[in-house]
């Protein structure tokens, strides 16, 4: 008895292999969350009847009546690690992917730029492989290949390093933004866990910047 009557029939299919992996990863994460929440409950935190707006985890409340979401504030976010704007590793991997895409489109463009739209269409439609567990990143990242592929196809005759520049600059800016954010958070952070994580984020941002500098040279 479907609630919305005769709307489109939902044909149920069992989850695919990839989806099973996602489910497995999510389950492990849930186990970690449950254990952390159990720790907090034993410390005297209260389990509220509300869920976090961002991730849907049950909220805890400490004795000072401050709400606390274990998964948002303590564990690394599930999807953030694949979002290039927030994670240096993801930024690097996206850069590499675009390099690959540029290499594959450059030869195809070489024969005749007069062919124009059709080939550029073809290059735009090449689906870049997305990491498996990142619905958010998949949603967030889908738009970017389309938007950046066009400049790549137009600049296909220009040597590759130059074609990479805007991308590298973008990545650098993203990393610097993140670095700034992490520094601010670190200054105001009270938890040991989050301080450690912020420090490691800063370290990886620095590494990424170094790698980007090497790439641009």
């Amino acid at each position, binding site marked *: 008895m*479907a*609630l*919305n009557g005769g*709307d489109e029939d*939902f044909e149920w299919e069992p989850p695919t292999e990839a989806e099973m992996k996602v489910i497995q990863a999510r389950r492990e994460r849930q186990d970690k*969350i449950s254990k952390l929440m*159990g720790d907090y*409950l034993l410390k005297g935190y209260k389990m509220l009847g509300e*869920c976090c707006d961002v991730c849907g985890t049950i909220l805890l409340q400490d004795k000072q009546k401050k709400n606390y979401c274990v998964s948002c504030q303590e564990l690394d976010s599930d999807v953030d690690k694949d979002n290039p704007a927030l994670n240096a590793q993801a930024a690097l991997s996206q850069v590499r992917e675009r390099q690959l895409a540029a290499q594959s489109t450059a030869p195809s463009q070489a024969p005749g730029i007069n062919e124009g739209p059709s080939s550029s269409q073809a290059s735009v439609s090449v689906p870049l492989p997305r990491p498996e567990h990142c619905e958010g990143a998949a949603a967030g990242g889908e738009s970017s290949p389309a938007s950046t592929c066009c400049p790549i196809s137009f600049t296909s005759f220009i040597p590759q390093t130059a074609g990479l520049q805007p991308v590298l600059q973008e990545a650098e800016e993203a990393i610097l933004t993140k670095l700034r954010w992490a520094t601010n958070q670190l200054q105001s952070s009270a938890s040991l866990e989050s301080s450690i994580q912020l420090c490691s984020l800063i370290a990886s941002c620095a590494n990424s910047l170094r790698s980007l500098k090497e790439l641009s040279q």
Partner: protein
Amino acid sequence: MEHLHLEHVLQTVCVLESVVLRSFGPEGGQVLFTRDTGQAMLSRSGSRILTALRLEHPLARMMVECVLKHSTVTGDGSKTFILLLASLLRMIQKTACKEPNVSHTYNSRETAEASTARHLADKMLAFALEELDDIIAMGVVPYGCCLSWEDFTAKTKLPACTINHCVQKLLASFFHSRLGRTHCDFISNLTCEMLTHWKFKRDLPSSSLQFVNDNFAALHTPVSGFPISCSRLIEGQVIHRDFATPCPQTDHQPVKAVVVTGCLQPKLLNAGEVLVLGCGEQGREENSRKESSIVQFTAWLQSLGASVLLSAVKQSAAVLALAAQAEMCIVECVSEDELSLFAQLIKIELFLFHRYVHVAFHDSEERVTVKPCSLVICGTGEGQTDQYACAFQDAIRMLLSTWKPIGITATTASKKTFQPDKSTCLHVDNQIVKASPFQQYVLEPGCVIPAGGTFEFLLNHALLQHGSSCSISDDTIMGVPAVSQLLANALLSVPRHIYSYSLRRFLQTQTRLLKTDVSSVQVFTSDSGLESVSCKYQLLVAVLQCVSSLLHVDTVLHTHTALHTPSHRLANISWEGTEDERNTNSILTSFW
């Protein structure tokens, strides 16, 4: 309004599981409770830990209430309840995700999963209520033995491995898991002694257990500041109040007592008021009226011929003074339990004990039914003493559940012929008589098996065999084979956690059990202690009922009323004080 997903239910139960796991099993630790006042207490009791958590989430509170209700009946198994609950919900979710139930069309995957899960839970509950007792009787009971109540309280001299020893072993393993290794033997001996005293000769054995359970508050005295080894039994009843008026020396002679439940006269005199008799003209009439009523009252007291007055309420100062004058001692504010217990016993002898009134009862020649005794439970601190007292009461409840007959329903009784023979009961020389191959297996009360996951291993094996022996025509996930397999797999989580420190030990125990020949089972030489089959069965059914109820909750409606007191029924959490009464009917029921 919050629509409930399977994920929410699972997350809630997983959190409770992670809390409870730390104290589970023989290797489990204790939880240290501290109050803002600085009081500290160590406990391993599942129900105590769960009650101490601050939970506002309605599902969590519902689960905890189910656990508490169950443990009030069986006295044990709160942690196992949560573990089984979590394991079952996980398995149901896994099954619901993997297998389609495409007989209906649904809006989304979540709705499909929720519906599948709900039906699966209902099927499992139905299976448990119909077939589980037979499976247990066939697959688990032969590996255990039946303890008979008469043998337990027999006073004959018996060699080492005797029935009495077995009940003590059952109690000892209970106390071991609840209170630790050190004092479990001592406490189980004390419990056995107490139960022996309170055995009603002409009644059913369970009635004396029931009596002790119902009157436990009046039958024990907690005393803090002494080690547990100071606990002992004393004859008679202890009334937990001091004398309000000086107690005359009785020299252990029988005295007469009167029990009153209301306020006695006179109320004419207030505290602090001074009545001067024979004073001047002023107020003479008033004084003489008071005087005469006092004289009347005193005469009435003396006419009772009683030396002791037990009062349920506080009497006025005037009454106390007059009673003292009449050489009567009064005990005020005696609790209802104690008064009712007292009223059931006859003829008292009176002497003082600590700051309580200790009443000893004479054996009457005509009717020696029982030797009343009271348990003095000592503990180092108030919290600890309270814990010991709770452990005692839970042990009584556990014994009650052990001897509770598992319902042979009307249908099953008609299916098989009931053969009341004693071949499954233990004989004194510790030989288990081989059951004849054509005997109908019956889940007799009082059956115990070795502890340490035995029940779960055996039932797992029996369920898998049952599933494979069923007709293969019903191949869906709702069919009996699938349901019994699901239940079997979920059961294994308990021994898995017990042997979490060593997977090898888990496998070894499982292999050893399944290879054991039924006829050569030696229940009493195992070091692992004993546990009751009946309690385990009740636990399993209770967990399945809880799972079914949880999965039938569709929506949670958050209201603006104040937080509920613990006495409120959590099932009605969405029914009370909702602003929109029209919607209440659809809240906690399933849409399918």
